[in-house]
């Protein structure tokens, strides 16, 4: 072989191998996206189907084979749940109840929970025993407590009231808030509050003026958790209330008990019921991201 030939061969091999590498790189860098897209399609398909059913006339819902693409759309189902019918109240009242109860109960749970978490995390009150005991409040499924709660609520006149649900939801979510916030409290720099003590702040001032702002990202996580937990809760809402004061989760299955199976209407109501939660999570996300950018130390 002449030396020129060798050179040519080698350079061709280099070209080929680099092209191959580029292909390989493209594949390697794209396969996570393939996996993620696949998973997303799998996870989001039911959501897509709800949207589809919500906008379909009743006759199309059960057609076989099912039409995968949106055709023949209608607003009838939305109209039905929004304006109500002789047998069904409009959805707005239920959404209102859910919103009121979720917001008030979340605010209570967050206020109590963050104070509690601060005391436990900063001053180690009660050692690990107390914090474990608080968490253990959530080991029981709500259904296990329904009978005693029902009896207590009847005695106290709390059955079927906003106040009753607000109280019980606050109590149920405080442990979640405490546990979530304790982590944030422990990882937040203690020196900030110590600096505040030296600057003349008392415990309460240091907590409100210094610690709370630093804990904001954690608080928004906790707010999202509690709000969505309460918004989605069904068992207690159904057992301890549900006649005069009914939440959206109680409303949805009611639609089924009318004359016919109102699948389109249920889908439409479901859509309306998840919207507030999505909006709320979206708003909170802004706080989450901003909170992480705080850089007061070092």
């Amino acid at each position, binding site marked *: 072989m002449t030396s020129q030939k060798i050179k040519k061969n080698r350079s061709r091999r280099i070209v080929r191998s680099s092209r191959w590498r580029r292909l390989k790189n493209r594949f390697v860098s794209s396969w996570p996206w393939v996996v993620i897209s696949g998973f997303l399609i799998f996870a989001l398909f039911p959501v897509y189907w709800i949207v589809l059913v919500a906008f379909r006339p009743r006759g199309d819902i059960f057609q076989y084979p099912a039409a995968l693409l949106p055709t023949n759309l209608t607003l009838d189902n939305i109209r039905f749940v929004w304006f109500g019918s002789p047998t069904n109240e409009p959805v707005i009242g239920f959404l209102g109840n859910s919103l009121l109860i979720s917001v008030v109960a979340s605010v209570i749970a967050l206020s109590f929970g963050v104070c509690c978490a601060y005391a436990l995390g900063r001053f180690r009150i009660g050692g690990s025993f107390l914090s474990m005991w608080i968490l253990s409040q959530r080991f029981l499924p709500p259904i296990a407590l329904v009978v005693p709660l029902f009896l207590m609520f009847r005695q106290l006149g709390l059955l079927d009231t906003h106040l009753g649900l607000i109280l019980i939801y606050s109590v149920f979510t405080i442990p979640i808030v405490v546990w979530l916030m304790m982590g944030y409290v422990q990882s937040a720099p203690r*020196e900030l509050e110590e600096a505040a003590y*030296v600057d003349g702040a008392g415990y309460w001032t240091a907590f409100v003026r210094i610690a709370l*702002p630093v804990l904001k990202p954690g608080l928004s996580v906790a707010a999202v958790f509690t709000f969505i937990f309460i918004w989605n809760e069904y068992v207690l809402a159904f057992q301890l209330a549900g006649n005069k004061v009914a939440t959206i989760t109680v409303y949805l299955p009611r639609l089924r008990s009318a004359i016919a199976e109102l699948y389109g209407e249920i889908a439409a109501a479901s859509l309306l019921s998840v919207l507030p939660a999505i909006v709320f999570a979206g708003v909170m996300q802004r706080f989450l991201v901003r909170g992480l*950018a*705080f850089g007061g130390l*070092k």
Partner: protein
Amino acid sequence: MSVLTLKNIAKSFGATEVIKGIDLRIDEGEFVVFVGPSGCGKSTLLRLISGLEQADAGEIILDSEIVNDHTPFERGIAMVFQSYALYPHMTVAENMGFPLKMVKEKPHAIAEKVNAAAKTLQIDQLLDRRPDQLSGGQKQRVAMGRTIVRDPTLFLFDEPLSNLDADLRIEMRVEIEKLHKRLKATMIYVTHDQVEAMTLADRIVVLRDGVIEQIGAPLDLYDNPVNKFVASFLGSPKINFLSARVVDVGEGAATLSLRNGARFVVPMPTGDVKKDDALTIGVRPEDFAISGGDFSIPFDLELQEQLGPVSYLHGSSNGEKIVAEHRVRGKILKETASTLGVNSARIHVFDTSGRSVRHGRKGQET
């Protein structure tokens, strides 16, 4: 203004005793530096003084008042933390004004004082920024600004410069010194940095394992360390230790011999030494000379570090490591430096427990 007195202060965390009975008096306007190895309790002692930590025993007295039960604020102290501890959600102005806000000063009075403090620290153009928009040096200045706005009587600094790079550290060190001169306030300063300790301190307190090893003016500690620990803690490069033996004890002096057989007479109190006692002598790097001295030791040069006007000769003598300072420019040959001369008046002598038998350069002795 204040005089701080600590009487037999002790502190334990759980079962570990961290501060073991400390007595200390710090005079008005004094600049005292705490040094010591990591974990010896410097920060803990500072926090006890500040009131962020409660002493288990002993008394903390400011002027003539026992302040053990007073809050940090009531003690009238200001503290600069190693991490600066700037409030991340407040602007520089709000950070500096926070102590004033806590004592309910009027907003215009706060603004005035903050502006004045910002001017002296040259951060007046940063007042609207938030801490995450500041450089390390600027954060440091803000942290100092927050302490000076309310005229505290006692300043505590816990390694305030350790997060800065070398240049900035020197700059801020000078800044702190100026601050001390201007405010004439009492300052206590914790550092790992010898240069900071030597340059800033009126007195240095050397701590080890929760007890004070020695207190004194920087040069006094350097020249008259009471034990091997203090001797090796101050000075860079470190003091050299060589093992020696007593061959003869005379009146007010002893004759020692080194491993190589070199003999020399050292004036020292001889009450506690006997013939054949094992001792350690300490020689600072700058006390070696290539020629001269009362006696000399063999030297095996391994490396010369040239730093410009001085160079450090690393090597060994009879298996003992030695670093010697050499004040002549240029490369030195291994053969030229085959022995090092020592002036016996400038050496330190320690007994087997590490205590100094004779201080090195005390005026009346040399």
